[in-house]
């Protein structure tokens, strides 16, 4: 198996063009190998007779593995075509005068294709095989706008299919919510939290950052709940077989709405220990993967408590239903400017209603109230989150 690229580790043999007994001479194409760069024909460097094929069609073998034995005049030699480096190096030429890449076969460009770094990166970001793109630069170089054109073409062709089966998801949600309501004695608490500290802090911080680094209020809410859950283990864990087991870590299930209907609450692991920037990045990444239908099993199973927020286009208060086998769910309504009494006077302040729905087999209202008020306190000092 020859090395067909500096980063090639293995190749798959897809076709033999010779069989035992065939005569071959130097330069004959003897097989076709599939690599990350496409289907590539390989030639023999020996002249002689094929004695034996060593590797079956379909086998993926590391670079350097003997593929066949060719009997030459000089005697038996187990030879795999040597890597191209064994050829005498071509005379040094200025890069512009180098040989143009081999014309596309099967719609794919062979090795030697020139690709600009920006084009390569964009193709990678969009999951496009760069070698399927025709380059329009000098020497057929694949440029940024060649990739951009392909992206536009793909978008025009493919209707977007959701990654999740929404009907099946609806059924699963129905079953889970029904069971939760049947089995868990929910109790509900609500608490108004004044959010001007958070809003001011966010505004100041985001003003200095490009969009990629900005935080959303949701990240502050998740962090506050995570930190509070550390202190109140009765709300962070699982209820199984008549027994509550507090979890040693805090994995916040973040409820994410799926476009077209559907709801999923995958875990942000160890949310209490993540910085706000990391937390925000995880949230963004989760939302992206949810939209693409790529959520991992562990993310569904791991949440130790869930946070659900309807965002600024929702309503004042959200009463949640606990996701079995968790024992609590914290809900946030939208932040709205309302009258708020401070120092004996009525002021207009941004207020959010936070609710706790909790399992009465594990905790009671007193602990729940402390838990909720702790969240409220943490949100008064966003810089410590």
């Amino acid at each position, binding site marked *: 198996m020859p090395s067909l690229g500096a980063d090639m580790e293995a190749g798959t043999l897809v076709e033999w063009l010779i069989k035992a007994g065939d005569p071959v001479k130097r330069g004959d194409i003897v097989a076709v190998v599939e690599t990350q760069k496409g289907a590539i024909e390989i030639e023999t460097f020996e002249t002689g007779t094929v004695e034996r094929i060593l590797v079956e069609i379909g086998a993926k073998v590391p670079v350097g593995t003997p593929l066949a034995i060719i009997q030459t005049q000089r005697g038996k030699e187990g030879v795999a075509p040597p890597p191209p480096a064994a050829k005498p190096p071509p005379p040094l030429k200025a890069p512009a005068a180098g040989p143009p890449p081999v014309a596309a076969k099967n719609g794919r460009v062979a090795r030697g294709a020139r690709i*600009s*770094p*920006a*084009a*390569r*990166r964009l193709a990678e970001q969009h999951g496009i095989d760069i070698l399927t793109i025709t380059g329009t*630069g*000098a020497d057929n170089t694949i*440029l*940024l706008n060649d990739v951009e054109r392909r992206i536009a073409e793909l978008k025009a062709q493919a209707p977007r299919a959701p990654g999740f089966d929404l009907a099946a998801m609806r059924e699963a949600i129905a079953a889970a919510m029904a069971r939760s309501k049947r089995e868990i004695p929910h109790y509900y608490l609500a608490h108004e939290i004044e959010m001007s500290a958070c809003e001011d802090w966010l505004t100041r911080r985001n003003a200095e950052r490009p969009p990629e680094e900005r935080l959303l209020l949701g990240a502050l809410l998740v962090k506050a709940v995570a930190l509070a859950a550390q202190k109140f283990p009765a709300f962070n864990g699982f209820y199984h077989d008549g027994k509550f087991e507090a979890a040693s870590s805090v994995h916040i299930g973040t409820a994410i709405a799926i476009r077209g209907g559907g709801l999923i609450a995958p875990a942000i692991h160890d949310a209490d220990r993540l910085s706000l920037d990391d937390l925000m990045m995880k949230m963004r990444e989760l939302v992206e993967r949810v939209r693409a239908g790529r959520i991992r099993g562990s993310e569904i199973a791991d949440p130790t408590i869930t946070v659900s927020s309807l965002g600024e286009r929702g309503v004042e208060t959200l009463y949640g239903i606990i996701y079995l086998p968790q024992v609590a769910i914290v809900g946030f309504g939208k932040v709205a400017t309302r009258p708020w009494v401070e120092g004996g006077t009525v002021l207009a302040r941004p207020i959010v209603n936070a609710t706790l729905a909790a399992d009465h087999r594990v905790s009671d209202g007193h602990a729940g109230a402390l838990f909720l008020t702790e969240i409220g306190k943490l949100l008064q000092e966003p810089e410590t989150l």
Partner: protein
Amino acid sequence: MLHKAAQVAVTETTYREAIREAIRDALKRDERVFLMGEDVGRYGGCYAVTKGLLAEFGPKRIRDTPLSESGFTGAGIGAAIGGMRPIVEVMTVNFSLLALDQILNSAATIRHMSGNQFGVPLVIRMATGAGRQLAAQHSHSLEGWYAHIPGIKVLAPATIEDARGMLWTALEDPDPVLIFEHIMLYNMTGTLSPDAGPVNIDKAVVRQEGRDISLITYGGSLWKTLEAAASLATEGIEAEVVDLRTLRPLDDATIMASLRKTHRAVIIDEGWRAGSLAAEICTRIVEQAFWDLDAPIGRVCSEEVPIPYPRHLEEAAIPQASKIVAAAKALLKRA
């Protein structure tokens, strides 16, 4: 970089006058400041920058020196260590070679060698560049050499505003600052707000925004680059022109932001190509913005020859707007 909203009328001035005004302003603000160099006093400066200053400030503040760059640069270093704020004027960068040991081995290095006991708050101004048919020995652009040296700052004011504003900021710097004034800029006319003051000396500036290609340059080449950008615009190519302003330290952030936007760059540097400042910038772009590149990086530098004396050969040897246009179009495959 923005002028204050004009409550005060702008004045018409020249690059030369702006520098003179900067020197006058510095001499008036701080009594530790003085200027010394060859022919700066009675003659008024080889390029007439200091004309009239001797009469205004006297021989203690404007000092004519003997013809000895090494000697008077050394004296300037000593004065700076001793608590003064000297401006040493070396007539041109060509003659600074005679003071290279002082600049590199004393000025740039004394803070380090003295364990931070002594600094050298010295400003050295030098004329630089080609274009006046001063031939092989008197047409160098060695800013790139100086930008190689740790311990100093290297500035290249290309606009009247920078000519006026960089000097004071340089004088406030506790370490040596070299200011390079391109000889072809002295006569340049333009406007300046009468209350124009100090400017920063650590940031590059985008003089003209564009989306298709970044043209990165400094000093005398800025105006040729802007001319090239105008020419490219008539062909539908939007060039972004970046004026480096400071060659050491280089403002990587501004350069890379431009590359992220345009994905292509040509660097215009009047030094010779080999081992040039342009080469350093190329490397930094490859290090920091490789994945943003959609074309190789181009350079327009002086040809690898001693700068010729005959006018037409001198013009052919140094960067010109036409060469910049050609380089840009080659990258965009429209040669």
